[in-house]
């Protein structure tokens, strides 16, 4: 209950800022296509008013369906903002992402050598089916006994995913009469990827988990990307074992899938905040190892975004909040599983609601319809500026100590409470202490 103090502190800090000349708007008209946390955030934002249906809007938080149908026919004035890029699917559809990453890797190898290209080896071996079926079979035969995972390209929440070890399994699946006509049609078009399954995921107390991290991109050319500090780890509800690849509940850590698992207990919440995970890993592996791990995770974000930089149609009206899914293996190597253009904003618990609320609030602060930011900020709320047409370094008084090392500007998880609330705590302390 008293957690609200933090958001209250935030609001106080912002409302006292002066608005820039001519850029401030007294009333911001918004459209919202979703009925979850984002509704509340937009609703409660001072000076923002909802418009329905055909009304003119300054801001649109839309779903991808609406975007597909309407974007091309909409004329947007300079100040208008919309929450997706026109062809975001270059990054978020599994087959396209794979294609873009592979192409980027090749370019990198040509230009900068093998070592540099190896830094793109963060996605498991993936083939698009049916077009790459033959190369897939070659690779499959080269590593007998390995497990692969089949994923539909455009579905979400774990639907349609299954694991297999024998080619026979997918041949059967393709011929499977029990699937509906519509599903069969889908299989004709390039809508599946076969990916090498990570058989040695990092387990905590015998359970598999993946990381969900939020990245906000406000521009692709030049690339400007923000990383949200409060990501979380999502646990599978049951203990991991390779012996039961039919049990999708074991392997898939999406909360949506977990919710339908037989022993799912909604009271239980199967998430850890990033800080807990970091604590745990540091206690096990030491500070340096974990530091390196998080740097590698940053590397994933940046390179995946650079790989689609030239393909995505840059539009100053667009911004996008991505949900990255990262998996760790036992050697503490991070792997990119996928990128979501519409990460779930529905809250699974009160704590989750508060996290998503803060996330969305900070997103809106950065989009800055009210024109309050100077443009030089490196930290806004829980977001750290990760890439601004180049790496971003923090400037925390290191010059004063004569240190010449640069520290990256991201603090994935290191701070649980923002500066504002810590100051709040100290102020309270000093009020109570009588002067000596």
């Amino acid at each position: 209950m008293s957690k609200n103090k933090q958001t209250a502190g935030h609001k106080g800090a912002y409302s006292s800022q002066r608005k820039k000349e001519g850029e401030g708007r007294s009333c911001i008209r918004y459209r919202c296509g979703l009925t979850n946390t984002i509704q509340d955030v937009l609703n409660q934002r001072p000076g923002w008013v909802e418009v329905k249906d055909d009304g003119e809007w300054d801001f649109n938080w839309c779903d991808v369906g609406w975007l597909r149908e309407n974007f091309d026919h909409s004329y947007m004035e300079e100040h208008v903002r919309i929450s997706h890029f026109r062809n975001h699917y270059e990054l978020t559809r599994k087959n396209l992402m794979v294609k873009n990453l592979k192409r980027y890797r090749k370019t990198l190898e040509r230009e900068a050598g093998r070592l540099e290209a190896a830094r793109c080896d963060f996605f498991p071996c993936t083939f698009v089916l049916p077009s790459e079926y033959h190369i897939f079979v070659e690779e499959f035969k080269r590593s007998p006994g390995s497990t692969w995972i089949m994923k539909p390209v455009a579905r979400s929440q774990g639907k349609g995913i299954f694991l297999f070890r024998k080619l026979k399994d997918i041949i059967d699946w393709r011929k499977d009469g029990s699937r509906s006509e519509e599903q069969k049609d889908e299989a004709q078009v390039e809508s599946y990827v076969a990916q090498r399954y990570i058989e040695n995921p990092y387990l905590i107390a015998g359970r598999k988990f993946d990381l969900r991290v939020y990245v906000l991109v406000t521009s692709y050319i030049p690339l400007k990307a923000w990383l949200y500090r409060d990501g979380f780890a999502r646990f599978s509800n049951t203990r991991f074992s390779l012996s039961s690849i039919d049990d999708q509940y074991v392997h898939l850590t999406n909360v949506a899938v977990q919710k339908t698992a037989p022993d799912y207990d909604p009271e239980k919440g199967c998430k850890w905040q990033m800080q807990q995970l970091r604590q745990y890993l540091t206690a096990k592996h030491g500070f340096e190892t974990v530091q390196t791990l998080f740097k590698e995770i940053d590397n994933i974000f940046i390179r995946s975004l650079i790989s689609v930089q030239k393909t995505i149609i840059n539009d100053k009206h667009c911004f996008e909040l991505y949900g990255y899914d990262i998996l760790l293996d036992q050697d503490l190597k991070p792997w990119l599983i996928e990128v979501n253009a519409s990460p779930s904003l529905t809250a699974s618990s009160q704590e989750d609601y508060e996290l998503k609320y803060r996330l969305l609030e900070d997103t809106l602060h950065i989009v800055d319809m009210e024109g309050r930011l100077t443009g030089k900020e490196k930290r806004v709320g829980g977001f750290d500026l990760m890439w601004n047409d180049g790496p971003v370094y923090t400037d925390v008084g290191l010059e004063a100590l004569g240190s010449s090392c640069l520290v990256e500007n991201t603090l994935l998880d290191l701070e649980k409470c923002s500066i504002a609330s810590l100051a709040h705590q100290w102020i309270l302390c000093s009020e109570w202490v009588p002067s000596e």
Partner: protein
Amino acid sequence: MITENPVDITSVLMDESAELSVSVTQIVQRLKGTHLHSQLEKQAKECLHKPEIKLETLKDDVRRLLKASGWERKLQNAVYRELHILPPSGHPRAPPEHTKEPLEYMCKAQVNWEKRILKSLNSMCTELGIPLARKRPVPEQKELTNKWNEMGTDEPGNADTNNLTCSRLHLDVLVGLRNPNNERSEDLTVRSHWGLIQVSLNVRDIPQMREMYPELGLTYGQLGIDDHTHVPPDLFESEHIHIGKKVVSEQDSAAAQQYSRQGCPTGLRAQLWSLILNTTNDPEDITHYEQLKARVINHDLLVDNLIYKDVKLTASNDDYYFVFEDYLYQVLLCFSRDTAVLEHFSYNSATPPKSCIQNSSGSEQCAMVYPPNGVIPFHGFSMYVAPLCFLYNEPSTLYRVFREMYIRYLFRLHSVSSHPSGIVSLCLQFERLLQTHLPQLFYHLREIGAQPLRIAFKWIVRAFSGYLSTDQLLLLWDRILGCDSLEIVAVLAAAVFAFRAENLMEVTSLASAEAVLADLSTLKVMPLLQIFLFATSV
């Protein structure tokens, strides 16, 4: 000590040295039977083969070699550990019960408390018709062996456990304590104690704690404050980590304990705590753990149900500890069967419960300690283990560390005694600190029927486990280990009230006071402690 009579000084010194030699003898006695002793003997024998040894200086040479190979350090650590659990030496004529608990009324209260728990356990036994202990049939043994790493997926066999003792009952026992020697006056005056604990024990106040724990002071760097991201690491953190690495490589128990007062770096904490508690992971420790596991597989105990229920109710529902459910069973079930724990009853005011166990044919009866380790679990017990799961994932290591923490500190939180780290003293200390330094707040809360201890008791009993966020909790437990005392828990409880004093002054009911203090997960422990201990005007 100051006396003008020279004879007195000598006799005092002689008494002290006599005391010392008694302690030395005791420790030597205890160490004689241990594995370390046999290892040292073996090492010493091996030394004899070395060319550097000369017959004339045999003793010194062997000693020198043992020192160089690190064995002397191991012995030092073992002695240091024994000093920790050595019962306080009393009068030579005093009966052994006095070392457990010198005050008679406390003893009586503890005995009554135990009777209540036993009664509850027995009624659970008869109501549910389960025996206290039963041998598992072979198929069940096999199944349990297979499921050993995922016991969390099982449903606990017997549902109802109102018999899981909860902290409210415990608090009522403490509130009812009275020293028959004291005059009882019901009038509330400035000089009287306003809190619930109505016995007079010697608890430290702020000036005394400042003297005892200077390392927590404002002039010392602290992990939990000075490792904040805004503070350049060169000021304190880097150096502290560097020293920590040295302490670990030197394998020095005493140094580790001293070091821990300023906090343990996350990457070194597991090793440092192991060092402070002198737990090893030798093959014999692993064997011991496997033996306990075998006992779990062979026999089912009634108290296992209490453990299952407790884990499901507390740790499994916790946002962070739910992951470790299986580890908790693996530790607690073994703990119940570990007779080595019985040793601590020589300095614990509690006495292990005994029960008559009939063998299967009903012919023989014998009084045996039940459960084998003498400790009946209660609601929240698993929260003592949960934070350790963050540090150790090897079951035998996790087990050893937990057991050692229990027999050194945690047992004091649930037995009635006059020890300064005992729950009674901690509650009293909390109340006194509050009354002395925040009298207006205390009075207000009292008036609205919200006695502070009613809210703080659950924090103190669990040493804040499950109430603070895990990183903060571990920083707190660093200091418990470093200061070798649980007092810091009482101080933190008072500091929390001080921190939220403004809001608390405005509430008008117990429920609202509870609401203000319901969520401690955002608190930073070390600033609160430092300010309360070192920035309060006294």
